[in-house]
């Protein structure tokens, strides 16, 4: 069955359906079939982290997962970030701390940080912990400093 198959998946809380060949990655399916272009594709082979989304509550690289494998799962993309208390905290902090310039890598950073924040110690996040968590996401503009600050700030400002 190299032909397109139907894929039913819950994305950002909404039941969605689309068609994809087995070789289609989840990233391409989200962008091209579901028109959710917030997920960005950088390297397309698992190095840059830009395409990070959540599947079943775990951050994953959507270029390294086939769309057919996402059938029946719950996916969260950057478009669903505002529905989440940690997601809102991240949005505010990234804006306040100027944690993006061109913004291409930002969706991946946000979803990676979302997983970190959800599991974080209520006492707050240390910079080493943040740097390790985002070490798989490449940013060519910011030099990372403002991203680390934003994630730390978001970790201390949950709520609202």
């Amino acid at each position: 069955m190299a032909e397109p198959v139907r894929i039913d998946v819950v994305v950002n809380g909404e039941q969605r359906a689309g068609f994809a060949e087995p070789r289609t990655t989840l990233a391409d399916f989200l962008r091209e079939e579901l028109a959710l272009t917030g997920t960005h594709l950088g390297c397309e082979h698992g190095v840059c982290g830009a395409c990070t989304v959540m599947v079943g509550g775990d951050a994953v690289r959507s270029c390294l997962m086939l769309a057919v494998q996402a059938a029946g799962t719950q996916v969260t993309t950057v478009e669903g970030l505002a529905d989440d208390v940690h997601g809102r905290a991240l949005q505010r902090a990234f804006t306040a701390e100027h944690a993006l310039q061109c913004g291409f890598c930002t969706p991946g950073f946000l979803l990676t940080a979302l997983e970190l924040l959800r599991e974080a110690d209520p006492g707050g996040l240390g910079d080493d912990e943040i740097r390790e968590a985002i070490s798989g996401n490449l940013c060519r503009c910011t030099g990372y400093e403002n991203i680390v600050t934003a994630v730390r700030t978001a970790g201390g400002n949950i709520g609202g």
Partner: protein
Amino acid sequence: MKAAPFEYARPETVGEAVDVLTEHGEEAKLLAGGQSLVPLLALRFAQPRLLVDLNGVDELSGIRALDDGGVAIGAMTRTRALETDPLVRDRLPLAHEAAPLIAHRAIRNRGTVGGSLAHADAAAEMPAVLVALRGTVTARGPAGVRKLAAGDLFRGHYTTALEPDEVLTEVRLPPLGPNTGTAFVEHVRRHGDFAIVGAGVTLTLEQGRCTDATIAVIGVADRPFAADAAVAVLVGQDFGEGAAHAAGVGAAAALTPTSDVHASAAYRKHLTEVLVRRALLLAARRAVG
């Protein structure tokens, strides 16, 4: 950067997977976590006719205690589970320590223990954990089930003794003896990179004397390198800084690593010396602690 077309099968049991492999032979490729294979597909270095996805085979996942004190890990168990599972933390401290060194969290959420072993990257951590802990893997094929010791599994760069119609189903790691410490250390340019060199060791001490040890080094050969000659010298000696240093020198002397863009052969030998020494000294503190 898009994979060539392939057919896709999603078996629900190991038996079904073996049947599909038996029918299609080398034209089929097993898909575990996909964190190494999917990039190869995207770059078209791999172009299988059929992808056999093991993610629907529930019987391949899970970590369980063995009666002898060891641990069995299903091949499709995610690498992330090695960080969080209390059984791994308590019984397999070497695997627990090595797991967070493997790539990044999003990769570990998908990547699998069995997938890493079957992929057999000579710089990967899991193969060294298997070698250092004297583990075995179970493989199932059309002729039945067989067990392979760590030393028999790895045959070269990205090459194992697994047949094209076999599925790696389980990893078994025996218990550590008393007074045994373990350590996994590596040198990387950036957190999450493949190690330039890494070392996983176990060390058993009785009243200061080394009675057993294993040393596995990654990034220096075409497979995880078991420094058996250095271990042979170490066992029976009183353990200390000098013995650890000698083991590092011995491990490095047995190697002929290659130079590449990341590191020269001489630097890899130097790192082997340093990292084996450090790992042994750390393991010694844990053995008596």
